[in-house]
């Protein structure tokens, strides 16, 4: 891929010559898009320049059918805001340059992102501060005025009373299209969700929609970038809070959300930072919804592999690993679990 990247960047950086691409590695994870890191060095106006980049490239199939331009728009909208995000550089909707559509962003250097590293002893003294910052940033995402930004160009906002229905309709359809076997627990959950809708939110906000430990870049100094905006949309902010609490992300298996914070502490921090009061019944609705959505994502991966759209082993792995676990979580969320 080095020659193709060199050719592409040369065409995008005016006056650049001698483009050299190095350290091209695919980064593990990236369940919706292939994520690659690479470095570029070139001459420009007689000076040597270099930059570190991240490439997000569309795969043949994935856990999610996400829209590239939407994700790019959310990143762009949050540049220079209080919410740290990597800076976007280029987006290509065609396949000519690299064989598939992609976008390229600047790489934030020296950060960890995985779900286990934050449990290391090195992070013990700062883990509480990172957890606090995580929920402060969530509040900042929800406070962000999206009107007039790139987001509004690519997305129509729902009315407050439609937020829950738009999301539930979407994810139920994903299940309809992808389940390989009937899903009686998810179907029961969907019936309950439709029979017990949450009250409309006070405000329609940006919803990151995959905000959890594992989707931000961190060091011992704090959080430096919120990533993986592929499911972002406009909607009810409680969707993010509930999603971050999902049992599947309790990496330490001791009830701490994301393995780093107790739910009540996170709610208190979020309420302080956002100046809003969390409606616990609505939060519970979004908790059950999150399980349905999670199951829809795992089922999509299973279908992609079964149909031969992808050979990525992450897809059958999540099927074997998570579909039944998600059912167990869903039962517990509905008060029907062990």
């Amino acid at each position, binding site marked *: 891929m080095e020659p193709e990247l060199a050719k592409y960047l040369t065409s995008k950086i005016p006056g650049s010559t001698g483009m050299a691409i190095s350290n091209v590695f695919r980064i593990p994870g990236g369940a919706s898009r292939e994520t690659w890191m690479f470095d570029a060095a070139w001459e420009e106006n007689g000076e040597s320049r270099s930059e570190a980049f991240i490439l997000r490239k569309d795969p043949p199939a994935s856990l999610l059918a996400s829209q590239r331009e939407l994700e790019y728009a959310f990143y762009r909208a949050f540049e220079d805001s209080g919410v740290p995000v990597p800076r976007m550089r280029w987006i290509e909707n065609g396949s000519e340059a690299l064989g598939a559509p992609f976008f390229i962003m600047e790489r934030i250097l020296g950060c960890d992102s995985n779900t286990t590293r934050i449990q290391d002893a090195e992070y013990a003294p700062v883990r509480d501060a990172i957890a606090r910052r995580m929920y402060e940033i969530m509040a900042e995402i929800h406070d962000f005025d999206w009107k007039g930004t790139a987001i509004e160009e690519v997305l129509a906002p729902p009315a407050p009373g439609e937020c829950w229905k738009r999301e539930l309709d979407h994810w139920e359809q994903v299940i309809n299209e992808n389940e390989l076997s009937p899903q009686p627990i998810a*179907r029961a959950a969907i019936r309950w969700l439709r029979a017990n809708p949450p009250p409309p939110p006070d405000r329609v906000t940006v919803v990151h929609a995959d905000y959890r430990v594992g989707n931000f870049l961190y060091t011992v100094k704090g959080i430096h970038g919120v990533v993986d905006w592929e499911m972002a949309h406009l909607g009810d902010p409680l969707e993010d809070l509930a999603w971050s609490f999902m049992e599947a992300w309790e990496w330490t298996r001791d009830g701490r959300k994301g393995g780093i914070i107790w739910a009540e502490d996170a709610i208190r921090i979020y309420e302080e930072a956002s100046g809003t009061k969390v409606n616990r019944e609505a939060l519970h609705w979004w908790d059950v919804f999150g399980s349905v959505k999670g199951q829809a994502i795992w089922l999509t991966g299973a279908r992609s592999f079964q149909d031969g759209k992808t050979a990525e082993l992450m897809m059958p792995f999540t099927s074997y690993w998570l579909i039944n676990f998600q059912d167990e979580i869903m039962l517990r969320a509905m008060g029907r679990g062990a």
Partner: protein
Amino acid sequence: MRPDTPKVLFGIAGQLIMQIMPEVRTPIAGQTLTLSAALLSMVAQEFDRAASRLVEENRSVRTLLAASRDTVSEQALRSRIDAETADMHEHDFHVSALQAVNDRLRSLLIDVHAAVETTPGEAAAGLNERIWDELKESTRRRHLASGLA
């Protein structure tokens, strides 16, 4: 006599981690190898129990459906219950055949559950609880020793 299939699959998983992993040079290859080993371990468990699990579950769901027949009022649903419970036995023990039966039965269970939820009376309430118990049991049957849960 040859080694049991699960033993072979666990053996391959172990070799991947112990022998091949140290030779891996890139993070993505390491991830692929780890996923391969984990999948082999899970498939090994599923291989041994799949037929037993499906036979047990199909029997359980058929019994539940038969018990629900007089509680559901919709004739079309009753007819489907009659069709699925006319013969309570399995005749093809290939996992794919058992799974196809399981899919039919669980699809019908979804519709029966939805009907029972909106049916008044103690019989329906009791049946609703039995269906939830079956759903909970279905997750126990599918539980794998490796993985998150």
